[in-house]
């Protein structure tokens, strides 16, 4: 494989990853509530990191001839953990009664976990007596 071809592939991958991270940052600023923001932060930032790491892996593997098992582990690790982190943040937000955006049309969890005011009151109660 020609060296310039490798360089082109690696730079396209890294650039794509950086653009995805930038889009994710725009989503964090522009989106209305915590759930849509978490949607932007989790998916596109994860893919951005994965693509950038793949670019770095291809650079070290093809250009320098060094197979970095740490980068492979990093890719697998970020791919496994970032969505779970987003899931946990969203769940904690919903359970402590963070309001949904005003334009929300349907909330299927509300009949199970209680309305937003009930969840907020329960959260406040939980913080008042932390040793229960």
């Amino acid at each position, binding site marked *: 494989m020609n060296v310039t071809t490798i360089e082109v592939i690696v730079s396209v991958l890294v650039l794509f990853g950086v653009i995805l991270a930038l889009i994710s940052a725009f989503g964090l600023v522009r989106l209305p509530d915590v759930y849509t923001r978490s949607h932007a932060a989790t998916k596109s930032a994860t893919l951005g990191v994965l693509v950038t790491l793949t670019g770095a892996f291809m650079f070290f593997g093809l250009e320098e001839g060094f197979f970095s098992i740490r980068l492979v*582990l990093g890719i*697998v690790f970020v791919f*496994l*953990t970032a969505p*779970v982190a987003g899931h*946990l943040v969203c769940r904690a937000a919903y*359970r402590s009664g963070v309001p949904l955006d005003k334009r929300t049309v349907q909330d299927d969890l509300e009949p199970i976990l209680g309305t937003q005011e009930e969840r907020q009151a329960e959260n406040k109660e939980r913080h008042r007596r932390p040793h229960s």
Partner: protein
Amino acid sequence: MKANDVILQTVTKVVSFIILSFAAYLFFAGHHDPGGGFIGGLVTASALVLLFLAFDIRTISNGIPINYRLLVGIGLAVSTVTAVGSIVLGFPFLSHTFEYVDFPLFGEIELATSVLFELGVVLTVVGGTLTIILSISEDV
């Protein structure tokens, strides 16, 4: 409200093995690459803390029955013994040596006595970190 931690617990079961193997890699890489006993011990401790976060303290304490206060003492003892061992063999305190040994499967490997000292560092760091975190988390 009933808690449902299936996702966190399932991912923790997979991820803790990745973290522990990375900790072992860092520990053995420390002689020639970035890594070593301290960072290996901290990464091991972070894997254990992740287990304590995803499951409860009682489950993990039953599964991994280690007294972390004792682990600090064992680690300090291991490091001290490797340091005093050089006096016993007639060299200055904390002298270290290495030798190249041929193994059947791996080929020639450099074996250094400083790895034993670093093993003591790992045990001390894991014990100290988990003693701090577990005693903070106790509800007394």
